[in-house]
């Protein structure tokens, strides 16, 4: 037990530290209030024996300072004869008790022990109160974590399913082709039709490998962007060129599905500062969604400037999205339904990644949609002035 003895009388300090030391306390002494306060800053004491009458900073002032620093510290005032009134004031200020001079050691010991015990109990009660609050907060946090964990597990299940689908093709076609090749070589068959089939199998293996690589890249990219470790390029993006390039990829697919595909640009498009590769991923993502979820009608991709913002809008006449899902689709792990019936396409990270990219550029991505009537995705990006291409 650390006890601080504050008294201007050297004799009192000596006697108390001797006797308390013998009783097992570890004693520090101070000859005035100022020093006591100073010692208090560096050392943790279990109790203080404080002389009421001292030159300079007196006992009351010292008590106030010590309580400011540690409100729970038990302070026992040591008072001279006839100081009762002041001693009572000290108690009101939070002192634990007072003992009269000349100090009776036995009384001091008892008071000290009680004071320390009481302070410890009070601390415990305080901590208990805190821990009740903490345990409620912990419970809520735990609940939230459990929910997140559940979402994550479901997500991982659906991701691993999506990753295995191309893998099934890759492994399967490689096996089948190897077997065929072995057989044909043994039979010395040199038929161009058969060899052509092997070529198609290899083509499938390559395409499915690329699909798989794309999915893995998406997962890693999202993780890196969220962790803040992603590398971003920052150049002027030739918007029209990027959109035309993306449109060129989807044009044949639209044609094949019999969907009318219209790409419109406002005459002078401003430049946008940003990461061209990632921005082009956003454009491809929303065009890809439009073509995937539209079976007939048309897809219109239009880009225009309104004041200081650039708007890229892709509207389709596809299946549409239920209003309850308009915000959720931009959250990662949202592409989860009953994996058996609503089969997600890809790993379902396209829109969450797009949102991260657009927001990194200071813009926003939103959707307006009605089931059965189609969807309109709008990407808004702020224009950087004085940098026209």
């Amino acid at each position, binding site marked *: 037990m650390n006890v601080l003895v504050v008294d201007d009388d050297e004799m009192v300090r000596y006697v108390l530290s001797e006797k308390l030391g013998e009783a097992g306390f570890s004693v520090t002494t101070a000859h005035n209030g100022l020093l006591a306060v100073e010692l208090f800053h560096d050392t943790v004491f279990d109790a203080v024996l404080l002389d009421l009458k001292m030159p300079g900073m007196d006992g009351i002032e010292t008590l106030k300072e010590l309580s400011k620093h540690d409100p729970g510290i038990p302070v026992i005032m040591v008072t001279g004869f006839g100081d009762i009134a002041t001693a009572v004031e000290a108690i009101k200020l939070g002192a634990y008790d007072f003992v009269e001079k000349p100090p009776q050691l036995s009384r001091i010991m008892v008071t000290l022990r009680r004071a320390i015990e009481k302070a410890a109990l009070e601390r415990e009660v305080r901590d208990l109160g805190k821990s009740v609050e903490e345990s409620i907060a912990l419970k809520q946090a735990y609940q939230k974590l459990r929910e997140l964990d559940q979402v994550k597990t479901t997500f991982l*299940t659906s991701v*691993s*399913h999506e990753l*295995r*689908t191309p*893998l*099934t*093709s*890759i*492994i*399967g*076609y490689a*096996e*089948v082709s190897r*077997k*065929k090749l072995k057989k044909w070589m043994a039979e010395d068959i040199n038929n161009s039709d058969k060899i052509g*089939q092997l070529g198609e*199998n290899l083509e*499938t293996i390559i395409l*499915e490998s690329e699909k798989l690589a794309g999915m893995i890249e998406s997962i890693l990219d999202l993780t890196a962007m969220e962790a803040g470790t992603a590398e971003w390029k920052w150049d002027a993006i030739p918007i029209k060129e990027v959109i035309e390039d993306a449109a060129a990829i989807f044009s044949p697919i639209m044609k094949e599905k019999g969907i009318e595909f219209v790409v419109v640009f406002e005459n002078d498009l401003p430049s946008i500062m940003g990461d061209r590769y990632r921005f082009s991923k956003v454009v491809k993502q929303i065009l890809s969604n439009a073509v995937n979820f539209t079976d007939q009608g048309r897809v219109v991709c239009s880009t225009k400037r309104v004041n200081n913002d650039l708007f890229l809008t892709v509207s389709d006449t596809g299946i549409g999205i239920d209003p309850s899902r308009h915000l959720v689709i931009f959250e990662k792990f949202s592409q989860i339904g009953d*994996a*058996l*019936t*609503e*089969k997600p396409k890809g790993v379902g990270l396209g829109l969450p990644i797009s949102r991260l990219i657009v927001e990194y550029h200071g813009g926003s991505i939103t959707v307006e949609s009605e089931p059965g009537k189609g969807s309109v995705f709008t990407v808004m990006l702020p224009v950087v002035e004085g940098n026209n291409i």
Partner: protein
Amino acid sequence: MPKILIVDDDPNIRLLLKQSLEELEDQGVIFISADNGEVALDIIRDENPDVVFLDVMMPRMNGFDVCNTVKNKLEIRDVFIILLTVKGQKLDKQKGKDAGADIYMTKPFNPDEILRVARNILGL
């Protein structure tokens, strides 16, 4: 003539199954394929295939539902159903059993294993 029905919404997997089983064609086996559960169910009713390789994860009607309808509702007994799904889902195994599947195989699958199973069932 024995008939094998291949059901998967992924055209790559359909073709892969077909190639895995290809040499059975020499023994007169006929292949039919379907890209969703509803069509598969119609074919099972109308064409009476001997063996069905049935993917589980499909839009509209999944493999469990097709299997359950065939085995438990329509009570078609002379069709052998092989459920195909991704590896390691315990729940799926139980569901497959409940749905009355005859065998349960996992993706990625080994083409030789597919052929061996088909040969065993058809006795070829």
